[in-house]
């Protein structure tokens, strides 16, 4: 039981993290279903974009 079934690799762990934090932030900062849904989508995509972007930027330094 080293890793949960929902997070078998680092990318999946990041997806879980991004989704859960986006949902929690949406409920903390927005009111109304449509506003929250839009915020979840926006924050989730922003998390992914920033993480993948930073990964690309740091890639040359990993060698």
């Amino acid at each position, binding site marked *: *039981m*080293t*890793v*949960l079934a*929902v*997070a078998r690799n*680092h990318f999946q*762990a990041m997806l*879980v*993290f991004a989704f*859960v*934090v986006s*949902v*929690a932030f949406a*409920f*903390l900062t927005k*009111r*109304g*279903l*449509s506003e929250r849904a839009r915020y979840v989508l926006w924050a989730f995509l922003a998390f992914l974009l920033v993480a993948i972007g930073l990964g690309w930027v740091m890639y040359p330094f990993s060698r």
Partner: protein
Amino acid sequence: MKGAVVSESLRAEESEGDQATGTLARGVSAAIGAWVVPGFGHLMLRRWTSAAVYFVCVGGLAFTGLFMRGAVFGPGAPDMFDRLGFFADIGAGGFYFLAQLFHGIVPDIAHASGDYGTRMFATAGILNLLTVLEAFEIGSGRRT
């Protein structure tokens, strides 16, 4: 159609919360409840949807972090970062104390997944502290 029903229920939840007048005692009790069991403070304030979402989010992050073999910091650590980690972790309230029962899961921060797990548990604690603040503000009438 289904979305409209859910939206109506959310609006009803918020207006129900607005009807009650906020007091400092109500805010403090909601904040304590929210810390002890994530989401419970909002349950006390009749914010059913928020309560369920916060419970699942904080619990989900805490247990994902724990099962990824993340480290859960204890009190009295000599290192400053460990102390900061403890303050983040203790924010998860009941889940922090529940994590102490899982002796079989040994932290493995030598690997990336264990390190991610440590961050996930700390994030669960910080998120719960934000929900505690929100429960206090709603309970004391500073926020609708």
